[in-house]
């Protein structure tokens, strides 16, 4: 209601709601392409995604605005060159203006609109490329990073695992009680409901549409071109043309002459080619005895076609009047349609027709659906009966449930957990959870959020505490052993693994935390020792046997590659700072988003 026409302003320039909606649709399309079957329309129904799309629009506007402010311009020659380079507009490897116009028209755009948009893109590009393409990183730092990245540590690891301490860990009662008291929230069951629901979807309605075999045949006949080979017929004709400005008398005379020829042909059909050659005023076919060859529907004038497709092979018919004049037609042959083909496509046609029929009425039906669940708000039966849809029931669900999938939609769950749905057991409004899919639900049973007593969760707590204690013991033990190793004492209880080589350039997943520890370790005297708490819960002791620091060769290709990478990541950070700076400098106003339902 009364939604303003713009969603934000950037230094006074508006971003229209239309632009924003279009951007959301584009984003949705991208996601659909990226995720395929996993695509879920509710991905877009979350505020973060909407904010991200809007921020992106704002950024584009800002950059375009700034480019104008600092006096950038797009040369006509550049614009022309860019357009002519777009392969989509090429025909025979050359830019085709026709194709350009046509493709744009299909997108509902004029060349001027497209050119303005492209010019905007080029302006933004010019604003940024000079900045991102000119990064300078000092050689001092580059050399250091190159050397650190290439530094190879040869290490052994020995893990101290918490499992061995689990059984010794016995938490006492007071600890259990205080854990329960301070984690009460974790042991609360969320508010849950069991619901019944009805889904009205175009898909389902289509299945219910009755389509007769006649309708299918009719569609098949009228859309022959969609099903491969269409029926073709071969005919000959003799034409006597009637001039456009002929008088009635002239026309009658021509007709009389034509009838005379028709008599002649009927008496002696074999004479047809000869007569056609002699008398037909269709010069093209006259030469070959009136033969027109095979043709399908849609190629001849209507009256001619109707006649030709009604006749039997060998039959002679006349006079057939068309805008050209009077025809005498002889049907030579019929090339039949492949009947098997009809059976092959029959089901496909049925579905197409079902979908068409359902789609025609869907707007109206979904409105009825919405009205009925609202008017008879304490039952879903009427709407289920009216549309012949099942009333389905769910298991217990909470606000974060992912099943059943038609209900796992932010707006739907909000409606289900609303006061009127829970307290009064009213139907929820009909919500479009996906394109052409409406759902209304009704709460059957409700469990408020409830705390679980200590008795119920005690075992779980003990298990948690045991693990906690074991983890603490592991770390303590590990640190003690590490201290001893660092002091030069041997420890026979440790089982060292095979030596491995590790460096930033060859790092694998999980190596990052080890590398941090290695770099922080003093390796003046080898072997050196360090230790880390891993994310798997163990404490790993690390023995450094060898450190290979490469000599920096600033000529090597490896070095160049590394410097390029470094410049790139530095450039990315610079770009972020630049963009954030623009965003802070200009006044950007975002209108609060109104729920559009």
């Amino acid at each position: 209601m009364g939604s303003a026409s713009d969603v934000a302003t950037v230094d006074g320039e508006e971003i229209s709601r239309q632009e924003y909606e279009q951007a959301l649709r584009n984003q949705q399309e991208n996601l659909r392409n990226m995720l395929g079957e996993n695509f879920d329309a509710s991905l877009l129904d979350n505020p973060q995604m909407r904010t991200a799309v809007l921020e992106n629009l704002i950024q584009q506007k800002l950059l375009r605005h700034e480019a104008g402010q600092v006096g950038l311009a797009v040369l006509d020659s550049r614009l022309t060159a860019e357009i002519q380079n777009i392969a989509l507009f090429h025909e025979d490897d050359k830019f085709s203006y026709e194709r350009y116009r046509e493709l744009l028209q299909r997108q509902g755009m004029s060349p001027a609109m497209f050119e303005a948009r492209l010019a905007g893109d080029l302006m933004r590009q010019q604003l940024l490329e000079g900045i991102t393409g000119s990064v300078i990183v000092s050689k001092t730092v580059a050399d250091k990073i190159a050397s650190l990245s290439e530094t190879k540590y040869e290490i052994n690891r020995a893990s101290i695992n918490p499992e061995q301490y689990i059984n010794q860990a016995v938490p006492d009662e007071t600890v259990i009680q205080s854990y329960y008291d301070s984690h009460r929230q974790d042991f609360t069951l969320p508010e849950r409901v069991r619901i019944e629901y009805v889904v009205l979807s175009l898909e389902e309605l289509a299945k219910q549409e009755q389509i007769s075999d006649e309708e299918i045949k009719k569609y098949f006949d009228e859309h022959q071109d969609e099903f491969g080979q269409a029926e073709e017929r071969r005919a000959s004709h003799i034409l006597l043309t009637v001039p456009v400005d002929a008088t009635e008398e002239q026309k009658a005379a021509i007709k009389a002459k034509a009838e005379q020829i028709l008599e002649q042909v009927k008496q002696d059909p074999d004479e047809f080619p000869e007569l056609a050659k002699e008398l037909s005023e269709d010069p093209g076919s006259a030469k070959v005895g009136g033969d027109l060859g095979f043709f399908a529907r849609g190629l001849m004038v209507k009256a001619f076609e109707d006649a030709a497709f009604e006749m039997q092979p060998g039959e002679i018919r006349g006079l057939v009047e068309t805008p050209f004049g009077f025809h005498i037609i002889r049907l030579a042959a019929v090339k039949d349609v492949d009947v098997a083909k009809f059976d092959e496509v029959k089901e496909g046609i049925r579905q197409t027709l079902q979908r068409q029929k359902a789609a025609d009425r869907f707007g109206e039906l979904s409105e009825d659906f919405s009205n009925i669940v609202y008017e008879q708000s304490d039952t879903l039966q009427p709407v289920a009966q009216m549309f012949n849809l099942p009333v389905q029931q769910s298991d217990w669900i909470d606000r974060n449930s992912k099943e059943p999938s038609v209900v796992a939609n932010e707006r739907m769950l909000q409606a289900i957990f609303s006061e009127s749905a829970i307290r009064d057991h009213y139907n929820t409004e009909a919500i479009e959870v996906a394109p052409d899919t409406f759902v209304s639900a009704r709460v059957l049973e409700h469990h408020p959020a409830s705390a679980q007593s200590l008795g119920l969760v005690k075992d779980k707590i003990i298990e948690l505490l045991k693990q906690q204690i074991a983890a603490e013991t592991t770390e303590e033990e590990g640190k003690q052993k590490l201290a001893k190793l660092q002091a030069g004492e041997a420890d026979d209880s440790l089982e060292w693994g095979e030596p491995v080589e590790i460096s930033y350039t060859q790092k694998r997943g999980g190596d990052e935390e080890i590398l941090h520890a290695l770099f922080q370790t003093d390796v003046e005297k080898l072997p050196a020792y360090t230790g880390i708490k891993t994310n798997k819960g163990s404490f790993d002791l690390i023995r450094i046997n060898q450190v290979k620091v490469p000599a920096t060769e600033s000529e090597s290709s490896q070095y160049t590659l590394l410097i390029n990478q470094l410049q790139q990541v530095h450039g990315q950070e610079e770009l972020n700072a630049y963009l954030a700076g623009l965003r802070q400098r200009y006044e950007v106003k975002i209108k609060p988003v109104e729920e559009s339902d």
Partner: protein
Amino acid sequence: MSAYDFEEQEKIDRLKAWWSANGATLLLTIVVFAAAVVGTRLWNHYKGEQAQQAADLYTVLQQQVEKGSELVKITDAAQLLTQGFPESGYASRAALIAAHSAVQAGNNQSARDMLQWVLDHTEEPEVKDLARIRLANVLVDEGKYDQVLSLLNAQHGASFTGLYADLRGDALAASGKTDEARAAYQKALDSLDTQGAYRNVVQMKLDVLREHQ
């Protein structure tokens, strides 16, 4: 290809000659026009023309860079913009690009001059902040750590805090002030984009400083 080279070089030479002959007169004319209210439309027209000319020159510069031309050609092309259209965004960008090329060619003096020009002339605050970062990087290599630190003390946009702290760390680390360098890198980590890849680089530099505790 060689024909193109010649054409571009000629274009540059021609524009240079034109500028030295007409530049001053033109400036004078502009001032007169701009002062008069009736001149506003002409002024706008003139601005549009200027933008087009600057864009044209900028294209020439980009082509020189793409081709890997000698530094002097790139610098010449950039100077046409810095001298002819100092207020244009193209001039600042041209200078940044020329500075980058200069560093690659090992000509720090030229790089410093270009970056200093940006600092003195650009009207884009973010570009000024960037130019300072790049100048500081050149100075680090020249061992002028005090200059780096005082350069980085200048007021800058909030979004540049992380990068400035990082560079301060570089200068401090290079001059042996390990504790201060560590604090600077830590500050950088606290302000840099948490998703960005660059923070890993900073983390690396910080880690290795602990080695000498």
